[in-house]
């Protein structure tokens, strides 16, 4: 595709349910990032994949959050037992590598009710 694609664009889930958010990076991009943006707030780093290196998971807020990147391409962010405070826009970005421009998707707006 021409850009970073995220799905779904919107997700409403009940408290306690698990959700999976998908990110299709730009083809050939070795780096992939997940960020969380609460309403009117900045970008909170969650997890970073760079090539075949072990991912940097230092931003994951709790063990309910996990992410994987299959085949160096598509990534899935999973939130287990969702809580209301998980409501936010989850943004994925990819880049060619170190210090390269990061291209963001449009985000997935998650609402936990």
């Amino acid at each position, binding site marked *: 595709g021409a850009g970073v694609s995220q799905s779904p664009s919107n997700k409403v889930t009940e408290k306690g349910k698990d959700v999976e958010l998908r990110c299709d990076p730009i083809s050939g991009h070795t780096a992939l990032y997940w960020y969380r943006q609460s309403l009117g707030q900045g970008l909170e780093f969650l997890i970073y994949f760079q090539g075949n290196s072990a991912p940097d998971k230092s931003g994951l807020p709790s063990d309910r959050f996990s992410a994987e990147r299959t085949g160096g391409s598509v990534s899935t962010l999973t939130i287990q037992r969702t809580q209301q405070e998980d409501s936010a826009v989850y*943004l994925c970005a990819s880049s060619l590598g170190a210090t390269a421009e990061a*291209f*963001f998707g449009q985000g997935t707006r998650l609402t936990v009710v």
Partner: protein
Amino acid sequence: QQQVKQSPQSLIVQKGGISIINCAYENTAFDYFPWYQQFPGKGPALLIAIRPDVSEKKEGRFTISFNKSAKQFSLHIMDSQPGDSATYFCAAYTGRRALTFGSGTRLQVQP
């Protein structure tokens, strides 16, 4: 060490004026400093970026000024236009970790 502090939180500028947003960092390992622009409902998009070996970079109406000794950098938007109204994020990068973003500045340019 990984923080990037951004100010102001919001900014109102008249059309044709200069918008200035400031950022400061602590980690001297940062070696790439981009600015991102975000419109409502969209993901952030790269606006302009600088490396610490230069003190200024200009692209059209947008200029980054970089002060390595003070560990500060700023975005200047000359001749600000209503279409520039957006949220601006500074960021910093080391190559070993993901981009670290500032808290954002909501810019409103009044016609």
